[in-house]
Structures are given as C-alpha cells and as structure tokens.
C-alpha cells in the first residue's frame, strides 16, 4: 500500500499552532519528537515508554479535566498496541478527547519495519466501528488546515484522525526524559500541587 505524503513536522506544527489551550499527550518515539520540535511547553505530556498508553493516558486526563480539550498525538505502531483502547475509549465516550495518529505505516523507531496499517488495517474504520463520533483519514497537508478549523468545534464523543505521513526518519528533537519533572510541570500548569 502507498505510504502518505504529509510532512509530519509541518502537520504537527499546524495542529499545535491551533491547539487553543488543548492539553497534549504524545506517544513514544517520533510523535514525541515532532511535538517537542515545535516547542517544549508545560501543557505537553510526553511518553518515552509505556507503548500503547498514550490514548488511555489522554482518556484519564480528559475525564479529570472535562472543561479542557485533550489531544493525543501518537504513531500507528503505538496505537496498534492499544487496540482494546478503541473499545474502552468509545464506551467511556469523552467529548473532549481527540486522537491524532501520525501513520507512516511503519515501525519507524526500530528500523522501518512494515506495520499493520500498511497491510490493510484501517484505524479510522476501527474507531468508527467502535463508536467514535468522528473519524477521518487525511492524505494532504491542506486537509490538516481544515482539521485545525474543525478541532475546536464541540464534539459528540471521542474523535480519531489518521494523518498519512511520509515514512522517513528525520532528526530527533528530544523532550526531557525526567518523568517526574514532566509530570509535575504538567500538573502545575493545571494548578495542581506536587506531592
């Protein structure tokens, strides 16, 4: 199957420029680097491990912070490891959780092995069948511009957007690896006290 053509850094930059107060959770690997490359901010929560945990960490934040929008930015491999999360998130039905899958159809961090999304598995259809309120596949950068306009609109439930990005490794932009620092910084941003 053809891989995408969207430049991942440009797409993520557009989404972050339009975040409008949204809390951002990133899946390990390139998604974290893409978000960090645009600027390291207190309302970014980067994962460096716990593969399969990004969308569900986002769900927990969304349930605790119902007045804020939560945007999970992750990769196809990370989301494939959270297959059950499609069901759990759909049943939980948060109206403030959007999942952005940067889908290069490969396990980019480990040597660009083919992933399931390049072999017929369509994450947007899985989300749709699970009961997400909106799903979409984007193949061109101008479609990301439209998505940026649509994201702030009220949602009826969780939404998932698959961005078919170019499969290439670009220079890494490494977020801090100190997990407690990122945690405390994120909570402080929300007015929550450290232990």
């Amino acid at each position, binding site marked *: 199957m053809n891989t995408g053509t969207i430049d991942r850094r440009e797409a993520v930059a557009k989404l972050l420029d339009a975040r409008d107060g949204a809390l951002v959770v990133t899946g390990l690997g390139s998604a974290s680097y893409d978000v960090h490359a645009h600027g390291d901010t207190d309302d970014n929560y980067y994962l460096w491990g*716990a593969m*399969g945990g990004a969308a*569900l960490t986002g*769900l*927990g934040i969304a*349930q605790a912070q119902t007045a804020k929008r939560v945007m999970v930015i992750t990769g196809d491999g990370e989301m494939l490891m959270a297959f*059950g999360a499609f069901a*759990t998130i759909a*049943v939980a039905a948060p109206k403030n959780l959007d999942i952005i899958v940067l889908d290069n159809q490969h396990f980019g961090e480990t040597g660009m092995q083919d992933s399931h999304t390049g072999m017929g598995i369509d994450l947007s259809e899985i989300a749709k069948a699970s009961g997400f309120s909106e799903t979409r596949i984007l193949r061109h950068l101008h479609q990301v511009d439209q998505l940026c306009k649509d994201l702030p609109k009220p949602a009826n439930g969780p939404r998932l957007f698959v961005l078919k990005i170019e499969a290439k490794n670009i220079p890494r932009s490494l977020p801090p690896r100190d997990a*407690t620092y990122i945690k405390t910084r994120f909570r402080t941003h929300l007015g929550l006290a450290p232990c």
Partner: protein
Amino acid sequence: MNTSINCDLSLNWPSALYDVLKSAGVGHMSYVPDAGHTTLINLLNGDRHVKTNVLTTEEEGVAIATGAWLGGLRSVILMQSSGVGNCINMLSLPVQTRTPLLMLVTMRGEWNEFNPWQVPMGKATQATLEAIGVTVLRAETGEDLIEIVEQAATMAYEADGQIAVLIGQRLLGKKKW
C-alpha cells in the same frame, strides 16, 4: 454515607472498602470484573461522583489512572490476579513518573482453587508486581483489608506510591458454580 458500621467485615468488606475509598477522595475507578469485586464495582458504578471505566485489559487501567492523576483525580483499579500479568510494561508509567497508583487485586489460584489454570499467575502475582517496582500488601481478613487499604491510600495519593493490595482468596471464598 457509612454503610459498614457494625458489619461483619469477613462478609461485608466490599461496602467497607467503598467507604474507605470515598474517604480517601477517590473519584475515578477502572476495572476488569472479578466475582470477588462485584459489590464494590456496583457501588462505585452507582456513584455519580465517581467516573468509572470498564477495560478490555487491565493495563489500560494503569495508563488511565496515570492520566486521571495528571488531571487531578484520584483513581483506583480493580482486577483479579490474572490481570496483573497483563499490566507489567504499562506499570513502568506510574513507577517511572512516580504517579500515585492504587490497585486492589482479588487473588485466584492460591486457596481452595478448583481451576488449575489460575495457579501459575496466582503464584506469580506478588513477585511480578515487586519485580516492576510496585509495593505489595496482602490482606487475609476483612479487618486487615480495611486497615491496609486505608493506609495504602495514604501511601499512594499522599506519598506518590505505587501500591497493590492483594485480597487473599481465603477471604473471598470458593467460587460458586
């Protein structure tokens, strides 16, 4: 509401546990069902001040609980011992981020167990949790359980601990068919 005063804790520990969790400020719960957790699941599901999630696999609850804490909610995860095996890599998230975690684990495979398939993970539960860095406490009586969960909640939510409380199968009784 206190539903547990003067109750026989060997039978009524689930409602007493509910009171303990409410007193500790728990406002969020995730679970994979276990027969031993039925009453507690029902009580928390019926509480409009507690957000609950049914999971497809226990590791999901670990990530959700971490997110809930990031957003300011105290979360508890209910599961049976077999589910602990599903959690291991995801537990690196609360362990490495030092995020409060409270897991209440009903044991199988250790006492009056009729199903041999439950035995391997029952034997491995405590060692597995300790191997990844979670503190394990065990309760064999209702009274112990209440006291242990009260202090485990303090250690988790106020001292950034990652704690699993194992509820002995001897307390749960033999599974009825």
